[in-house]
């Protein structure tokens, strides 16, 4: 029997009971829409987190001062400054896996230009900082080793600061004061946007650490040391290496470390694997409703087979084989599910867009999830339609014809 004829027959019986068809389809509609929206939300959340981690700088290792014990009471992290420029230089000298090392001296100050002033974070760093933090200079240039050695008063502005002080965009070459010391703006960094914590990463100025220590304040303390490797897979070995060098530098024999070494890749993998699990979980929960919808289809198809026993008898009497009847009911159930699937798909795409707009996430509906949703709803149709269809096909024509 031709497919077109089968489809027409299926449509006839689907159209016959509009209300019932609608209610039956609703189960599949909700199921498919739920799967699509959940997968889109998961993908959006993952994209968001991955983007945020990427802006932190890849292959990043952070050394921070550890806790110290004072008379048996734990003083908490960063109680005393235990990181020195000597540590940084030793790491630079002896670290075989480290492609860049930079101290970070952190303070806040008022940046004063002729056109206005801006209170912001000042990072005193070395030249490796830009590579480590994956930070590029949009206009102007990074400072050089000579600038560091010479403790030159050069500053690179973050995007937010540059826009705040020089709305006309001609920041490079301007003179600004950091506290009382005049500096020359030699560059403006490309924007990074918001951090995962919600702070503006571009609200920052960067100066050579040597200059920060001597010219801005008497603040010598190194808040952290940043280091990076060329390959993500080197990170564990590099962290061990850093620990060894630091222990040597701090002459820690058998005692507790007074520093902490952390890497971002752990955060990155944890975050992405968490969202992957979340996505799978959401999709799994959503597919339960698809299964429930499928059971609804099966229920209705069983009722339909009973209702149409006489029709089946007639069809068999005039020459329909069991397989013809089976196909007819199967096509009907698949058409029902596919129609529900398509409506659900549209609802799901619409729902994803609404969620995307509300959260500001990039909730994309991929071709894959469209294909999976469509394929899945057809599969639900076949799976849950097969039993009722087989029941119809196995009917005895004589009994079926006699059925009232």
């Amino acid at each position, binding site marked *: *029997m031709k497919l077109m004829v089968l489809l027409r027959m299926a449509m006839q019986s689907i159209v016959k009971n509009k209300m019932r068809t609608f209610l039956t389809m609703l189960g599949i509609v909700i199921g498919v829409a739920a799967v699509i929206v959940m997968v889109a939300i998961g993908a959006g959340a993952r994209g968001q987190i991955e983007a945020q981690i990427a802006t932190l700088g890849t292959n990043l290792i952070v050394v921070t001062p550890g806790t110290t014990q004072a008379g048996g009471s734990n003083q908490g992290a960063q109680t005393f400054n235990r990181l020195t420029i000597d540590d940084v230089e030793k790491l630079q000298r002896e670290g075989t896996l480290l492609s860049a090392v930079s101290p970070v001296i952190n303070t806040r100050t008022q940046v004063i230009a002729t056109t206005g002033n801006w209170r912001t974070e000042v990072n005193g760093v070395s030249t490796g900082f830009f590579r480590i933090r994956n930070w590029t200079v949009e206009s102007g240039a990074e400072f050089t080793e000579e600038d560091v050695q010479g403790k030159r008063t050069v500053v690179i502005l973050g995007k937010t600061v540059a826009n705040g002080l020089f709305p006309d965009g001609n920041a490079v070459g301007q003179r600004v004061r950091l506290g009382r010391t005049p500096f020359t703006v030699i560059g403006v960094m490309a924007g990074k946007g918001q951090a995962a914590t919600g702070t503006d990463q571009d609200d920052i100025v960067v100066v050579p650490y040597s200059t920060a220590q001597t010219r801005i304040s008497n603040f010598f303390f190194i808040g952290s040391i940043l280091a990076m490797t060329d390959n993500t897979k080197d990170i564990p070995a590099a962290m061990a290496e850093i620990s060894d060098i630091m222990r040597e530098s701090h002459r820690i024999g058998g005692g507790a470390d007074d520093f902490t070494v952390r890497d971002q890749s752990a955060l990155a993998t944890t975050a992405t694997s968490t969202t992957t699990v979340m996505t799978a979980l959401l999709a799994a929960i959503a597919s339960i409703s698809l299964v429930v919808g499928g059971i609804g289809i099966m229920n209705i198809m069983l009722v339909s087979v009973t209702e149409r026993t006489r029709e089946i008898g007639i069809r068999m*009497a*005039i020459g*329909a084989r069991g397989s013809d009847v089976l196909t007819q009911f199967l096509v009907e159930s698949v058409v029902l599910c596919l129609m529900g699937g398509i409506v659900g798909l549209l609802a799901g795409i619409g729902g994803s867009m609404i969620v995307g707009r509300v959260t500001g996430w990039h909730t994309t509906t991929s071709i894959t999830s469209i294909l999976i949703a469509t394929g899945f709803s057809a599969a639900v149709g076949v799976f849950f339609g097969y039993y009722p269809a087989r029941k119809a096909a196995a009917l005895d024509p004589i009994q079926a014809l006699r059925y009232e």
Partner: protein
Amino acid sequence: MTTNTPVIEVRGLTRTYRMGSTEVAALRQVDLTVMPGEFIAVMGTSGSGKSTLMNILGCLDTPSAGTYLLDGVQVDGMTRNERADLRNHKLGFVFQGFNLLSRTSALDNVELPLLYDRLARHKDTKALSRAALERVGLGKRMDHHPSELSGGQQQRVAIARALVTSPTLLLADEPTGNLDTRTTLDVMALFQQLNNQGITILLVTHEPEVSHYAKRIVEMRDGKIRKDHPVEDRGDAAVDLAAYDAQEVVA
């Protein structure tokens, strides 16, 4: 009808049903031969075995014993699918309750057997269906649904559906059972007309006034053929219909 192959050739046909532990014989050793062009009425009370015989002849049921040749083809021993195809190719069914698909137009109802034809022997199924409906005098009501047609008209649609595949045998199971006197005459006139055109008809009935329009009567009782004789003073349903209408006008 040039061949001498019998349309039906049944030998020693037996059908037993198992009711719990006892076996009930619905048919016992039935022999029957039907030649092309015949118009046979099978008569009998309920329980006489005529319905069972009808089901077996209609390839809906299989005999417990005996042989059945339909148009020279051996039916006993066939699979379910083979019998379905045989029903489609060689048989046309007319039922007491019309058995049309509701909410499906007359034309689509008639077309249905052609759509189940596995060999797809007929190309223009719509044209064939239209021709069949015209043949039974329903050319103007092709797009009507069964609910919009009278009982007689519905039975005509059913007859058109039975004829559309050009079957070897037309099987009618109490075709007038649900019809009033006038419509009965109307339908019987159509059967006689079709038979005159060469179509072999076997109809099951318990009404003597219906059976006397056939050419031959087979009377059954207790699963056996008791009498098998040609119809004497055979009626002409068309003439009787005209007479009936005239009488109605007078009354």
